[in-house]
């Protein structure tokens, strides 16, 4: 697995407690080896996942964000993943305009019994993030960058149509 041979990247996972967190547990119980980049944040339901948590992670410098919930119709809270699906799909579609590579965010459904599927999802997603490499930082990395940016800003480049 290439992910283990090179430097780890920062991947944040948001998982619902009842299905996907359980699925990740099942993968652990089955000793299904996975890349170690992912750090999982447990939430009660995918309906609790504010798309802004994902944006916050990405703007803070996460290289990838993976969200997983119960399969549609199987939500422990009946409707949470239906709302989540709408919110997450919209975020996924919106990211390109911000200049954040939309491939760095993914959402999927994994049930508590799908340990192998979880292993597959984590492995594939980690692989994808490693192919994309570290995410470019939104903030300047050095004082030189800052000054260059300040200069640009002073020149007041706006929207193309504002001249």
């Amino acid at each position: 697995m290439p992910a283990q041979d090179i430097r780890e990247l920062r991947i944040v996972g948001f998982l619902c407690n009842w299905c996907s967190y359980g699925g990740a547990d099942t993968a652990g119980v089955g000793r299904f080896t996975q890349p170690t980049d992912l750090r999982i944040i447990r939430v009660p339901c995918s309906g609790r996942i504010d798309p802004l948590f994902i944006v916050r992670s990405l703007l803070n410098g996460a290289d990838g964000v993976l969200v997983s919930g119960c399969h549609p119709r199987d939500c422990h809270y009946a409707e949470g993943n239906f709302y989540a699906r709408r919110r997450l799909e919209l975020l996924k579609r919106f990211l390109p305009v911000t200049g954040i590579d939309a491939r760095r965010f993914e959402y999927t459904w994994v049930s508590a019994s799908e340990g192998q599927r979880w292993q597959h999802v984590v492995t594939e997603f980690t692989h994808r993030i490693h192919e994309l490499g570290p995410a470019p930082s939104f903030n300047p990395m050095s004082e030189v960058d800052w000054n260059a940016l300040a200069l640009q800003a002073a020149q007041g480049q706006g929207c193309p149509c504002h001249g």
Partner: protein
Amino acid sequence: MRIGVFICHCGSNIAGTVDCPSVAATALTYPDVVFSTDTMYACSEPGQDAIIQAVKDKNLDGVVVASCTPRMHEPTFRRAVERAGLNRYMFEMANIREHVSWIGKIKEQNTVKASELVRMAVEKLRRNRPLVAKRFETVKRVLVIGGGVAGIQAALDCADGGQEVVMVEREQSIGGKMAKLDKTFPTVDCSSCVLGPKMVDIAQHPKITLYTCSEVESVGGYVGNFQVTIRKKATYVDWSKCTGCGLCVEKCPSRKHPDPFNENLCNAPSINIPFPQAIPKKAAINAASCIMLQKGKCGACAKVCPVKCIDFEMKDELVTVDVGAVVVATGYDLFDWHKYPQYGEGRYKDVITSLQYERLLSASGPTGGHIKRPSDGKEPKTVVFVQCVGSRDKSVGRPYCSGFCCMYTAKQAILTKDHVPDSQSYVFYMDIRSPGKGYDEFTRRAMEEYGAQYVRGRVSMIYPKGDKLIVRGADTLAGTQVEVPADLVVLAVGAESAKGAVQLGEKLRVAPDQYGFFVESHPKLKPVETNTAGVFLAGACQGPKDIPASVGQGSAAASKVLGLLSKKELESDPAVSRVNPARCVGCGKCILTCPFGAIKAVADRFGNPKAEVIDTVCQGCGICTVTCPQGAIQLEHFTDNQILAEVNALCPPKIFANFE
């Protein structure tokens, strides 16, 4: 805040691939952490005592345990910190076993990951606050879905335990699959003689209300307070008057409809009582084949009925009941063996299922208990049993073992010899699985005393030759091909989830596994619980089971229900949503999206609209928190700040200070 961190070795489960002392040392550098140690087994009694001691000695007001999944031991540790005098929500867990040590192989990386997960837990804990549970009353009534042997046992145990029971059965009579069986293994006693009295008890028990020909339409509410709507399907017979005399059944001229109770081996009249011991013993009309309902002419049953209980205008009826708990006992269905081309896909009349064979053996069956093969009614002298039809076969999507087929096949081989003493049985099998009390002895008897020929191998083909069916298969022990000219072939079809189970699961919020069987809360420690509080499983709806196991689960589910309803009040989870009225602008978006109706609109003392959470109704999903743009409604224990703290712990914001 003063936080204590405990890193569990879990023997070598964690310590094998995580440097636990190093994780503990790193944790000491985190904000507010004043004590950190590693421990062999945090969940053991000395482990828990050490936590309690540390809370007291170090004056801790929050505890982080890094060990297994919180889905396993969070309740254990919460109780421990409670014993130490802390609120149980001043506790966080980091999952460094299932999510770290068991899935990663490189110790350095695992150790770093474990440290970060601990850091996340610490950051969240710093924003936790003590939460106190509210109490609410429960409805002292239980719903049992499914009237098979598991449901019957659960219902009787609950009723005997003093709770009211509502039983819903889809078919016309309770009894389930067991009512169709002739004899049961390994005692070879009469199935209906064992089950019959229990069915009668259901009918006569003063605490049990029985709805047959009925299905669960919808389920609302939560543990202790479910609202269930039951659809009573039209039977066209007023059961309050019907005496079950059977005159209508005799006179019904429409007899072209196959009889499902007899596994379609014969036809049934359109108005019917499925079998003599049926409970309730009432007639019902099959609308699809009734001449009156289809063509508007006939009415023979109405003419002969002595109590005038036939009502062709009858409509489905919806009944709503409040219950405190639900037992799901919907059982199983048989695998559709027609998917196998090698068994003729239904072209040969004398290839039948094991359950059809039960009906042929049964004295109340279509042949009156004489084995007659379906094609010409002759008594078969050579009977071939084929095992694992739709079990342990990935090619048809049924990789699991149905568990009971080996045993009932042995029983059927024995009964065949009893019925036709000059007969010879052959059994094609993969392995014999007989791990029950007296089970292996029983299969031995079939072979040794009753002379059943067991052939280890799969059947590759069945084809007709004259009035025989040639069964060709492998004998893997002898390493040869075998061909048996059979009069009758019985397929030991496996079990699959009951039709409609997945849809019922959606209503009850109980997830099915990939084969449609309901998932229990824990495979070992919570076999009859589900992840939805107040909903329990019994019998084969959770996975294929034989009768004693189903009965055992029925009783187990009943004991769980009785335990639940014996409390006067239940505690609600305090991790529910809470409105900050100062921030709420009263737009009602949370009310719109709440799946449980747990948020209501109220007015503050100035008349401004505000949202308010009904604590005991809220299930703690957090949909509302995301809906609210002001962040005015926060899910306790999973607030924005708590989750953001975890995000920021994992991805610290990059700030390049420029204060010039």
